[in-house]
């Protein structure tokens, strides 16, 4: 081949961003670990082990993010890597996205992983995936940090001594052979909830091979109540999927509809879409014992103690049926009428914490209302026996070998099971460990578990749709997946991570007689991140029981303890994740801690103040926990968030908060009565990011009820933008602006974590947060309105307003913060000398300062950072840039390819993450741009506009749709 041809060949079309990777690419790209070692020797110990030694990737991008600003003399030469062999997708500066899925409690959310220079640096939602629709949750965003967590289990150990994977698998085989004679009797496997068809198949195969082996399921946040409730109502287990887009009236009972329920991102999308007068605004009623995001979004929220819920629901049912409720709160009748009046467009949703009976009752009422709800078979693989059974078997001495697939059952088992003690009696204990957690400590063999972004697998979304999870890089710590481990149990010799998944889907293809088209199917599934039409079919079920015949669940008397998954740590699996630890809890704004939430009335009665440590006891179990006085908490109940107080499992996870599992009962996992509370006279200092609960009557967060809309519709700021003596901005460039719709925002915080991930925002730790030095560029202010007992909760995301007449700029003595032609308030880190005058002069207080070398102190590997964003050094100011790097990337691409920038070409990280589509960004010059249209909303206003700062970020007032018959008071 002549030279010229070679050149043409090399220059020949490398196309734009690909959304998937072929198997060949993958084969190449698993070399990540290799170059990490080459490029960041320091990282090797950060990962606690010497890393792989395969292909070395070119690493320019990351070297940008390495040193940050600190002491770089232009003369100092540094190294530029040249790879031995060019791999596809490793072009320097190339950005690619690869589809996969993250799971929570076994249920999948489809995501696209962004790769810069062939390494994952960001996670976005997968627009094609029903559970994501392009949005992400805090957990999805934080999965990236989890992936790079240096504290993850890294080595195979036996009894604490380092061993090799070969030895571990060998030992497994040995146990299996030993038990084979007895058909596997004595072989027990413990796994979390899972929806993976492959794992289900492997389980079936294993049980087939060893009929007397037992498989136990253990999920701390189980949805069993939901299915049992359905079973009671319809004779078979089912999962209700509310169609919020068709719902006008919604009654959520202790519901996690907008925060945690499988598919909540899609629910939020549908709910928010109808929070506008033009969209036939829906109305949300919420009964709940402990405040939740759903409650905060409600038009009417009623704090209902757990013991009353069922009885109240019965009365409601009676009222809807046209009967009488007897003695009931005043709002019940209007509510019932409202529901009844919207037959076919009204629905009830009940959270998994409510006992099955409540769910049954709700199902029956929904049936009566012809509610827009679809019933499907539960997407999680059924678990015939649970942890309690395992404990019984151990106690009976029938367990010879226990294989624990992932998780941390020792920590997350209900206290009354005494699993930790029982586990010690099992002769052979294997743990596929994500971290060196309590379970790993208690196990004989510890095999590091590969992160789901490192491994091949598959998982179902809330509606059953399957995503095939493809690894984004080779396991950083050389971990294995559950599939690999089971493959070994099933006798396969090589531990090829892809084989089990590929085999399962080939089998299915054969079964469906589509073997021929498999390759295309497979590539298609990988590219889309979705297996076509794999959603669960609806079940057509009819009630098998009458409301009257329904027996009330046992009510918990006395002081009730409510156990809830944590907004940041879920069931504790994210405890070692700095982003989530530092993510302020939406309602308390608490970071780095959990607290026993107590109602203001109860606190007053017991003379408790926030921070007081109390002793909570049920029976012989007791814990010590600091209380937090939580407005809106139902009197007589105390909420204990799970997931904290771990003693093993990483530098960050340990020694934070208290462990509520110790008080948890296996049979009543969500609520227990008859607890006692004693003051200990000690207090702890919390690290909350907001200390002022109310708005002080200031006009920062505006609210309007649908009824008063007409009056407000005239608009608040008659003259916008306010007249100014100063010269206006040029019209020759885009004018970037942002509109935030407070009616849509549910305050989940996904935008905060997305921003943190995108912009290399450092984690500062509890002490620094306490000292008021949290670094989030984007924060969510939480204000209460009304009385402590039943306040209204309002959320307002606040980021840099990019004021046209920016007060911060005028006071900077060195031009470190100035405007650019596109109206961005630019912060030039490398020019900043740190006078902090700009922060003093910012009325919105959106500027953050590096009081210490926060970025340098992070245990996070430099390779995990976004190479397109400067890492800030000590002593410089920083703030939201409207994702300047994304703007520039889009602009350069457009200029290079001679195209005009189109609306939507630039999407900020927060905007992308937001399920509610509360954030709109774009060019406000163009009257047709989405943001311009959003700002045309009469409810649109500028916060503190009277100061003449002319912010580019504006807000649309929060619209509520209260029932006139009830009124705003509650």
């Amino acid at each position: 081949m002549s030279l010229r041809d070679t050149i043409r060949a090399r220059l020949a079309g490398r196309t734009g961003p690909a959304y998937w990777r072929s198997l060949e690419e993958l084969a190449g790209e698993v070399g990540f670990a290799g170059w990490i070692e080459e490029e960041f020797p320091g990282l090797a110990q950060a990962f606690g082990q010497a890393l792989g030694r395969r292909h070395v990737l070119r690493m320019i991008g990351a070297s940008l993010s390495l040193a940050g600003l600190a002491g770089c003399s232009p003369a100092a030469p540094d190294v530029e890597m040249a790879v031995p062999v060019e791999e596809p997708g490793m072009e320097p500066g190339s950005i690619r996205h690869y589809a996969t899925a993250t799971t929570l409690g076994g249920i999948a959310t489809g995501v696209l992983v962004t790769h810069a220079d062939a390494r994952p640096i960001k996670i976005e939602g997968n627009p094609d995936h029903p559970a994501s629709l392009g949005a992400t949750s805090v957990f999805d965003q934080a999965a990236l940090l989890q992936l790079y967590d240096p504290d993850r289990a890294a080595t195979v150990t036996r009894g604490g001594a380092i061993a090799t994977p070969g030895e571990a698998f060998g030992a497994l085989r040995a146990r299996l052979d030993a038990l084979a004679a007895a058909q596997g009797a004595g072989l027990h496997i413990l796994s979390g909830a899972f929806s993976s068809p492959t794992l289900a198949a492997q389980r079936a195969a294993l049980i087939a091979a060893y009929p007397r082996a037992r498989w136990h399921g253990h999920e701390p946040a189980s949805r069993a109540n939901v299915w049992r409730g359905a079973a009671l109502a319809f004779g078979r287990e089912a999962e209700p999927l509310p169609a919020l887009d068709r719902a006008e009236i919604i009654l959520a009972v202790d519901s996690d509809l907008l925060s945690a329920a499988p598919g909540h991102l899609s629910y939020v999308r549908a709910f928010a879409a109808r929070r506008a007068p033009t969209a036939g605004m829906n109305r949300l009623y919420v009964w709940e014992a402990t405040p939740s995001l759903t409650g905060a979004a409600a038009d009417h929220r009623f704090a209902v103690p757990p013991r009353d819920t069922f009885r109240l629901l019965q009365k409601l049912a009676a009222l809807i049926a046209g009967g009488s409720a007897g003695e009931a709160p005043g709002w019940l009748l209007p509510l019932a009428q409202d529901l009844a009046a919207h037959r076919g467009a009204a629905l009830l949703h009940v959270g998994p914490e409510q006992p099955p009976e409540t769910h049954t009752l709700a199902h029956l009422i929904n049936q009566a209302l012809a509610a827009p709800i679809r019933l499907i078979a539960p997407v999680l693989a059924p678990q015939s026996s649970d942890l309690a059974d395992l404990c019984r078997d151990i106690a009976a001495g029938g367990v010879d070998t226990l294989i624990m697939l992932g998780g941390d059952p020792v920590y997350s088992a209900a206290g009354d099971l005494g699993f930790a003690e029982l586990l010690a009696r099992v002769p052979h204990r294997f743990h596929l460990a994500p971290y060196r957690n309590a379970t790993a400590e208690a196990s004989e063999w510890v095999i590091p578990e590969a992160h789901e972004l490192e491994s091949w697998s598959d998982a179902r979304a809330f509606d059953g749709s399957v995503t095939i999870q493809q690894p984004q890089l080779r396991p950083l710590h050389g971990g294995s997946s559950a599939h690999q481990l089971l493959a070994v149990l099933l006798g396969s010799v090589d531990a090829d991570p892809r084989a089990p998944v590929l085999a399962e889907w080939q089998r299915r293809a054969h079964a469906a007689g589509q073997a021929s088209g498999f390759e295309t199917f497979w590539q298609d599934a990988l590219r889309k991140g979705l297996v076509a039409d794999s959603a669960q079919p609806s079940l057509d079920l009819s009630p098998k029981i009458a409301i009257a015949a329904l027996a009330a669940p046992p009510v918990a008397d006395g002081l009730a303890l409510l156990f809830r998954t944590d907004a940041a740590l879920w069931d504790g699996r994210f405890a070692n994740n700095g982003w989530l630890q530092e993510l302020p809890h939406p309602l308390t704004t608490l970071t780095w801690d959990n607290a026993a939430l107590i109602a203001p009335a109860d606190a007053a009665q017991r003379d408790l103040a926030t921070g007081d440590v109390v002793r909570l006891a049920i029976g012989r179990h007791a814990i010590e926990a600091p209380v937090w006085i939580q407005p809106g908490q139902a009197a007589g109940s105390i909420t204990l968030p799970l997931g904290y107080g771990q003693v093993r499992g990483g530098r960050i996870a340990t020694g934070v908060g208290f462990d509520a599992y110790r008080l948890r009962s296996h049979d009543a996992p969500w609520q227990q009565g008859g607890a006692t509370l004693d003051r200990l006279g000690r207090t702890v200092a919390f690290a909350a990011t907001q200390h002022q609960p109310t708005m002080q009557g200031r006009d920062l967060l505006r609210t309007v009820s649908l009824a008063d809309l007409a009056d407000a519709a005239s608009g608040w700021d008659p003259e916008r933008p306010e007249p100014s003596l100063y010269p206006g901005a040029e019209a020759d460039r885009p004018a970037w602006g942002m509109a935030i719709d407070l009616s849509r925002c549910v305050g989940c915080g996904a935008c905060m974590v997305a921003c943190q991930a995108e912009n290399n925002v450092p984690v500062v730790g509890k002490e620094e947060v306490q000292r008021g030095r949290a670094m989030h560029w984007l924060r969510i202010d939480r204000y209460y309105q009304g009385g402590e007992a039943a306040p209204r909760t309002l959320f307002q995301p606040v980021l840099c307003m990019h004021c046209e007449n920016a007060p911060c700029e005028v006071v900077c003595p060195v031009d470190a913060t100035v405007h650019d032609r596109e109206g961005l308030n630019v912060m030039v880190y490398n020019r900043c000398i740190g006078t902090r005058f700009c922060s003093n002069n910012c009325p919105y207080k959106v500027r953050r300062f590096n009081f210490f070398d926060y970025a340098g102190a992070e245990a996070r590997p430099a390779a995990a950072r976004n190479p397109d964003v400067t890492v800030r050094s000590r002593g410089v100011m920083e703030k939201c840039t409207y994702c300047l790097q994304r703007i520039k990337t889009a602009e350069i691409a457009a200029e290079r390819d001679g195209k005009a920038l189109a609306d939507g070409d630039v999407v900020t990280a927060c905007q992308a993450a937001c399920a509610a589509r509360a954030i709109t960004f774009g060019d406000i010059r163009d009257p047709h741009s989405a943001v311009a249209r959003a700002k045309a909303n009469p409810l649109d206003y500028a916060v503190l506009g009277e100061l003449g700062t002319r912010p580019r970020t504006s807000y649309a007032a929060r619209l509520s749709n209260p029932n006139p018959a009830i009124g705003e008071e509650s």
Partner: protein
Amino acid sequence: MAQIFGPGMDLAARSVLIALGLGAAAAIAFACAMPASDYRTAQHETIAQPVPFSHQHHVAGLGLDCRYCHGAVERAANAGMPATETCMTCHSQIWTHAEMLAPVRASLAEHRPLRWKKVNRLPDYVYFDHSIHIAKGVGCASCHGAVARMPLIRKEASLSMGWCLDCHRDPAPNLRPRAALFDTEWRRGDDTPSPADLMRAYHVRTAGLTDCSTCHR
């Protein structure tokens, strides 16, 4: 009373005072000039590389196009360094046993990267994009100089912020026709379109080119 100081003192004192004044002025001038000096910018310096690669030989001698090795320059922010296999396309045929090329062969054999020392280096907080400069008609030579005449590569421009600004304020003189972008020996001729024409042809707009956000993120 006697004199404390001799007759010579006045002259001495005055000269000392004047010297001090001049000295201070000189020191300040030096401090201002220092950052622009070659010593600080490493301008015109060559750095020892793992392989003494001669651009002169490969570009002027063999007539290789810049893009043969720096393939990403038209598409990506970073021009990119050639993979070892690129070197081997030829050197698997010629100079196969040259001592000089041992590191190259080793790199391919052991899958270890060649670690070239960066010559044209920007601070980490500067985001330079090769592709847009090429697309807008700025040739390689404008920053990298006449590489075709460099046996060992050296830094031709100071790459100081002021130097970047000179061009960002008035790009016209540094634009060249598409055909000449990768020709480091190109000189403006009579048939060359005028700078103004080139500005129009490439749709170069100077508004905002000196914004901080153009280079700093």
